[in-house]
């Protein structure tokens, strides 16, 4: 593998990932997480359409923005406040296919909420993944609060707040950016702009082309990046992380991307967008693009690809079976943990 890349480089070719400081292993790891995220998601749709689970909310099409950014963090040290679509983020940071499936089937062993929340409501204090609820954009203030705590303790941990362009209309988004900008907090705002908030297109969500253009209004830089170019996202995030760790404050990264599926399994996207449009974006699939790149760079061969496919499939199959067999919570599991400490 390394030999191949060296050959390419010897021929004067560019190895983008190396230039970014990524080893081949790391570059392939990124690819594998993207593949895993996609595979888990596809399996969930199948199961849902079979009537075996009530709800799916997808990451398909946005793996580049999610995995590219998350891989720039130190897992378990830095923090993320993801939104419901960020399966790629949480898988990159240490959640497993089993975790995803347990949540999908709402089983007792689900680490995010023991089956209390819908899928897509990730959470793990151990992995520094902040629990998410359903109200949109509340997590941006939480992310600023996490960063505030890091600042008070003089730690250089960085927090990424993920959100869609729809969430940027909520007051909490403005309030979070405002506060983070005032105090130059170590928080990075990553907007996965997929052009739709369920059915509402960007043109009805804002008067401007780029969410990132608002950043200077809060006193920090905004960066627009091709969200389906995983290495571009990685680079932009890595730079933002450096800024943040150095105390230079927030960055707003707007990753332009696209949602391949409907908003969720309860949505019918044919009611508001054309199949042709989806097909065009499918050609810009971040996984396919990265795959092409990795092959050209010599890092991805047939056998490596096959091995990855086998691992991913095995994980998905194992996760599905494990989760489906896992026990449901019982009625007794309804009452505990309203408080950390009940008053007798």
């Amino acid at each position: 593998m390394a030999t191949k890349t060296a050959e390419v480089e010897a021929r004067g070719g560019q190895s983008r990932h190396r230039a970014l400081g990524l080893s081949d292993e790391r570059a392939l790891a990124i690819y594998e997480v993207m593949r895993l995220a996609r595979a888990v998601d596809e399996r969930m749709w199948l199961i849902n359409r079979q009537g075996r689970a009530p709800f799916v909310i997808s990451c398909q099409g946005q793996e580049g923005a999610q995995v590219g950014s998350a891989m720039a963090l130190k897992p378990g040290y830095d923090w993320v406040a993801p939104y419901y679509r960020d399966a790629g983020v949480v898988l990159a940071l240490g959640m497993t296919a089993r975790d995803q499936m347990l949540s999908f089937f709402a089983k007792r062993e689900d680490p995010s909420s023991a089956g209390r929340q819908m899928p897509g409501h990730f959470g793990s204090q151990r992995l520094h993944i902040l629990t998410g609820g359903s109200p949109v954009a509340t997590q941006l203030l939480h992310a600023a609060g996490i960063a505030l705590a890091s600042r008070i303790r003089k730690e250089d941990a960085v927090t990424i707040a993920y959100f869609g362009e729809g969430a940027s209309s909520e007051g909490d988004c403005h309030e979070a950016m405002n506060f983070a900008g005032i105090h130059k907090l170590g928080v990075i705002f990553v907007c996965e702009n997929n052009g739709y908030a369920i059915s509402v297109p960007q043109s009805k969500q804002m008067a401007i082309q780029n969410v990132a253009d608002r950043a200077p209004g809060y006193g920090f830089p905004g960066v627009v990046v091709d969200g389906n170019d995983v290495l571009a996202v990685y680079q932009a995030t890595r730079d933002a992380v450096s800024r943040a760790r150095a105390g230079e404050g927030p960055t707003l990264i707007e990753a332009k991307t696209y949602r391949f599926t409907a908003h969720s399994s309860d949505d019918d996207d044919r009611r508001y967008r054309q199949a042709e449009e989806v097909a065009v974006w499918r050609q810009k699939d971040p996984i396919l693009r990265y795959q092409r790149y990795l092959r050209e760079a010599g890092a991805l061969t047939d056998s490596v690809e096959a091995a990855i496919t086998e691992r991913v499939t095995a994980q998905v199959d194992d996760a599905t079976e494990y989760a489906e067999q896992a026990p449901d919570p019982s009625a007794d599991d309804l009452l505990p943990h309203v408080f950390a400490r009940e008053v007798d």
Partner: protein
Amino acid sequence: MAQKTVIEAIREGMDEEMARDQSVFIMGEDVGQRGGVFLATDGLFKKYGADRVIDTPLAESTIVGLAIGAAANGMRPIAEIQFADFIAPAMNQIIEEAARICYRTNGDLNLPIVIRAPWGGGVHGALYHSQSIEALFAHVPGLKVVAPGTPADAKGLLKSAVRDPDPVLYLEHKRTYRLIKGEVPDGDRLVPIGKAEVKRQGKDLSLIAYGLMLHYCLEAAETLAAEGVEAEVLDLRTIKPLDVAAVIATTRKTGKVLVVHEDNPFAGVAAEVMAVIMEQAFDALDAPVMRLTGPDVPAMPFNHVLEAAFMPSPEKILAKARELAKY
């Protein structure tokens, strides 16, 4: 022991907790440089610095949202909302996020946050500086709500609130800030959340109240005593979780109960107290349980005649208590 006002006791409580625990910090509008619009945080900015006493923008959702994030990352924030009347923009963060996070993570994440807010009327505050909000929040599982009425309770409950691992809404009656002075024990004394206190023993009827109304009830009780009626006064101190045992005990003792609060009547705290009494002490009742509350209008108006018409007073409490005693 020393005599202190309610506001002094609260300030002292915060000071002592901040000195004791590095993770405790304060944020809110005007809390830093100015020391708070009521001077609740006077002197703390100078003592602890801008990192631990933070002046926030004019944004209540920010104040609570930041507190949640900071608590998730190991801090113990004391978030001040300048007036209880302005807490509404933070509702989403309080009831959808703060109240539910321990439950929705199945105990993986708990939030040791305190949200302080001055409440209550009798200060010509009009519609937007006089409201009672305790019932709204007591209704939501996952929040603890306290409303001390005396300096000793204010300090002790603040300490308990800061050290509690769950979100606590700490309500300070603004009229009591400087009006009420009392003995505050020295040292690190905690008043437990969830425990009411009998402030005056009696056998003929029970007055149940909190905040400013506690003091009005005590005043009425003195007059009643001169008339041969011994009123017991139970200070709830904590709204949620309600000290049901104390409520039932006083009910069983006297058989006649009057619940008093400033808040509007519908689904107010009195309604819950009365329901609990009906459920658990019906056989001990010698009269219907009664309540005396503010009326069903959107907060008390500015004009003093209208404000007085709204607020319960010692005289109104006395009249109602006499009716109860005679029943």
